[in-house]
């Protein structure tokens, strides 16, 4: 209050905020403006700008007159749509078994839901070709035994196959969460009025779980639609994201087509998200009551159990295939035209560590700094939004979260466009420096950290801060001494999550990295995988990446879990009491 009183300008503007709050907001806003809003804005402007200046739609007309682009557009839609279909075929039965039945393999299903997430799809893509490709393990055996061949990995099929296997957990987790949020009385009311079995499932359970399914499915659609790295690694270029990448990197930054495609990527992604949000409006079906608790888990019949195992085991093998493949590849002397490698060696790991250790150190440095930026920005934004009355604070939150809807490729192109002509003292372009890559990684992963920080802040009851203020602490002291220490567990989880996901980022990275010495792990994998001889070392790097991500995922989980236990031991302040 005294701060406001002593500064007449803030009183005149009727801003209910202290100078430090305004300063913090200004710094965050400047960061978001410079590295998210302006670059993405430049992409849009360029897409609609005529060569001689002014607004034009001629580039879009060109786009829709070029058969390659039309084909790419439909291919991207087709691949995203089919990935949703196949991911659903895998995820829906697993979610239903997990949420509704007492099944001894449930722990296995839970593992199934995490395994794909610790391995970026582009890492597994090459291994998948060795297992399911034209001359891969499966087809070689099939040719031997039955003289048939499955074109699982040919062209678009390969992308759909790899993406469905990677992204099905999004549907599995969303759907099983919404299934287990259905109060048991919802089902019992149906039974009481005469419904049973499939009828009950169709009329009550599935409609109630639909919001969860849609949320997961739209996420899968958007992720696949925007993905650049997986199609590139599988040599599929007739899709939108690879086309945009190729235009910008081979034709040049001045070519408008890269920007037009970027705009289309953003528009379709936002439309898919908005469409699912629209469908879900007014359908918040979380019906679980206090004391109640989820659908009743029923015992399975013998036949049911056998059927469930017959589904879960092949699913597990399928999901494990990329992991097993990449591990084998990283240890293989030669693996070509044979079901299994000819021999095993640790040489690839030695090669990677001896010849390109910078991939690892760069990742630690870039992603570590990026995750640190994310945690700091996340805390500041969460605090501004939930603890101050600063005007425009909701907009700040919205802009930071909107990074989720911007494909990495688009942000990368925007950054190139905006900062390519800005030079560092040494003469290098700012856009392609490791500093910019680090900032871009931070922008892309900020939503995760912000969400975690918001959740952690919600756990700190306002009265704990008021007690500090009552004893004479200013807002900065309160934040540093009370709020942040109480949020520590959540923030540690946010740090490792941001770090792990940044470590396997490859869309913006592909666009921004120009030299191997400045390249992180994910780029290194991509470069190695380009040549047959590099596949071994590439796989070794891939295994290292998977291990790093797995450890981080486990650590994030452990931090969150420890925090939850610590909290349940302390007396929680209650709002009403």
């Amino acid at each position, binding site marked *: 209050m005294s701060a406001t009183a002593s500064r007449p300008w803030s009183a005149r503007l009727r801003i209910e905020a202290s100078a430090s709050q305004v300063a913090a907001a200004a710094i965050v806003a400047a960061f978001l403006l410079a590295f998210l809003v302006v670059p993405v804005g430049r992409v849009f402007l360029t897409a609609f700008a005529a060569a001689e200046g002014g607004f034009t739609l001629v580039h879009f007309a060109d786009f829709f007159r070029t058969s390659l682009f039309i084909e790419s557009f439909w291919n991207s839609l087709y691949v995203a749509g089919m990935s949703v279909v196949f991911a659903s075929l895998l995820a829906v039965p697993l979610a239903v078994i997990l949420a509704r039945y007492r099944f001894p393999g449930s722990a296995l299903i839970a593992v199934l839901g995490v395994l794909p997430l610790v391995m970026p799809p582009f890492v597994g893509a090459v291994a998948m070709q060795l297992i399911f490709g034209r001359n891969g393990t499966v087809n070689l055996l099939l040719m031997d035994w039955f003289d048939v061949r499955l074109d699982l990995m040919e062209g678009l099929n390969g992308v759909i196959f790899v993406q469905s296997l990677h992204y099905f957990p999004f549907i599995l987790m969303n759907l099983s969460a919404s299934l287990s949020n259905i109060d048991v009385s919802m089902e*019992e*009311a149906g039974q*009481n*009025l*005469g*419904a*049973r079995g499939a009828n009950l499932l169709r009329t009550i359970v599935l409609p109630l779980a639909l919001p969860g399914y849609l949320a997961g499915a739209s996420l899968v659609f958007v992720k696949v639609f925007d993905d650049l790295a997986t199609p590139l690694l599988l040599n599929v270029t007739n899709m939108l994201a690879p086309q945009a990448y190729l235009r910008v990197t081979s034709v040049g930054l001045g070519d408008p087509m890269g920007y037009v495609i970027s705009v289309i990527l953003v528009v379709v992604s936002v439309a898919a998200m908005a469409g699912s949000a629209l469908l879900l409006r007014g359908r918040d*079906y979380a019906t679980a009551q206090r004391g109640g608790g989820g659908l009743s888990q029923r015992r399975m019949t013998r036949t049911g159990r056998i059927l469930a195992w017959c589904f879960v085991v092949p699913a597990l093998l399928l999901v494990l295939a990329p992991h097993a493949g990449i591990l084998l590849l990283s240890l293989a002397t030669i693996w070509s035209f044979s079901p299994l490698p000819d021999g095993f060696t640790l040489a690839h790991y030695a090669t990677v560590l001896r010849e390109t250790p910078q991939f690892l150190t760069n990742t630690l440095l870039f992603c570590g700094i990026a995750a640190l930026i994310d945690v700091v920005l996340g805390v500041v934004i969460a605090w501004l939004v939930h603890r101050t009355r600063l005007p425009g604070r909701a907009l700040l939150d919205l802009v930071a979260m909107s990074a989720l809807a911007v494909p990495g490729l688009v942000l990368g192109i925007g950054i190139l466009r905006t900062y390519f002509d800005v030079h560092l003292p040494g003469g290098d372009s700012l856009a392609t420096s490791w500093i910019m890559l680090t900032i871009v990684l931070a922008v892309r992963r900020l939503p995760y950290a912000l969400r975690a920080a918001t959740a952690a802040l919600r756990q700190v009851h306002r009265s704990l801060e008021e007690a500090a203020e009552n004893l004479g602490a200013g807002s900065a002291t309160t934040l540093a001494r009370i709020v942040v220490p109480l949020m520590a567990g959540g923030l540690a989880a946010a740090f490792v999550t941001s770090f792990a996901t940044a470590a396997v980022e490859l869309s913006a990275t592909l666009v921004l990295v120009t030299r191997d010495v400045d390249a992180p792990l994910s780029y290194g994998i991509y470069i190695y995988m380009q040549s047959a001889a590099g596949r071994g070392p590439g796989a070794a790097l891939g295994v290292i990446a998977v291990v790093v991500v797995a450890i981080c995922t486990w650590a994030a989980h452990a931090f969150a879990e420890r925090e939850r236990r610590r909290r349940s031991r302390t007396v929680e302040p209650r709002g009403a009491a």
Partner: protein
Amino acid sequence: MSAQGVDVEGVSFGYGATRVLEDVSLSIRKGEFFAFLGPSGSGKTTLLRLIAGFGTPDRGRILIGGRDMTRTPPWSRNVGLVFQNYALWPHMTVAQNVAFGLERRRVPRAERDRRVRAALDMVGLAHLIDRRPAQLSGGQQQRVAIARTLAIEPEVLLLDEPLSNLDAALRAGVRQELVELQRRLGLTTILVTHDQEEANAAADRMAVLDGGRVLQIGTPTELYDRPANRFVAAFLGTANLIDGTVEDGVFRAGGIALPLNEPAAPGRVTLALRPQGIRLHRDASGGALAARVLRTEFLGGHVRYTLELQEGQQLTTEEAHLRGRDPLAPGGTVRLEIDPRQVSIL
């Protein structure tokens, strides 16, 4: 379908090692408003759910209209259960919720629409037919839940704590409506509640449950006036429970010597005495016993006193508050008289 009676015969039920119901037997007559009254954990809701078919007793039988329904699944019984949380399906409109049971019974469309409207008319909500549950108030949601159950014309109506999710101000009104509806339709109804006032006001007869056992069955006044044991006496209203002995038709405990109105076997007994069975005398001449006022609570319509007899026995009593009669101050003395017609021997 018409209303049916319910017979519960020797039912025991448990989850693993936890016993929930122990040898419960009771008989609910056709068209009766019956209440299961008990504290939480007494097994009353479990018993209700067994009647609806959610769970199978470990021992014993459940008969509805004389037919053994013990192993009949919920969807094949014609028993309407109104859930404590109403369990309205949020993805369906009010009309779709109410029509659900009729669809399962393959009632033709025209007939179905008519009965949906009739059920909603009955609870006075026909104008909200196209709303979704989230757009209704708590009281309206409950009426929809009742209409959804009434639409199938159940043989028995089961109400699981129907008033517990309503504001205190709404409860008395809704309770009266429930009773009126039950009388009009002649429905066999079972109400589960932990609130004695609710059970007293609504039920023709009730069963008091505790620890999975039925302690007493009777009309509300029977249970209040002649409780069978300490639990029932204390659970239904306030009771002074005094341990003493009966000798030659006289109850003695400390300084109390009370000639009993009804014959009682000699020996050690507990006497239950309602607060209104004690009359206070402010003048020194009236009343047989002298007591000191320990505590005075002014409750508006009446004043509650905690009194201590000379021998240390404590009694709770209530006196109607009248203007001009100031409550007795703590520490003061008073004389009192016990009305032998208001006591019962446990």
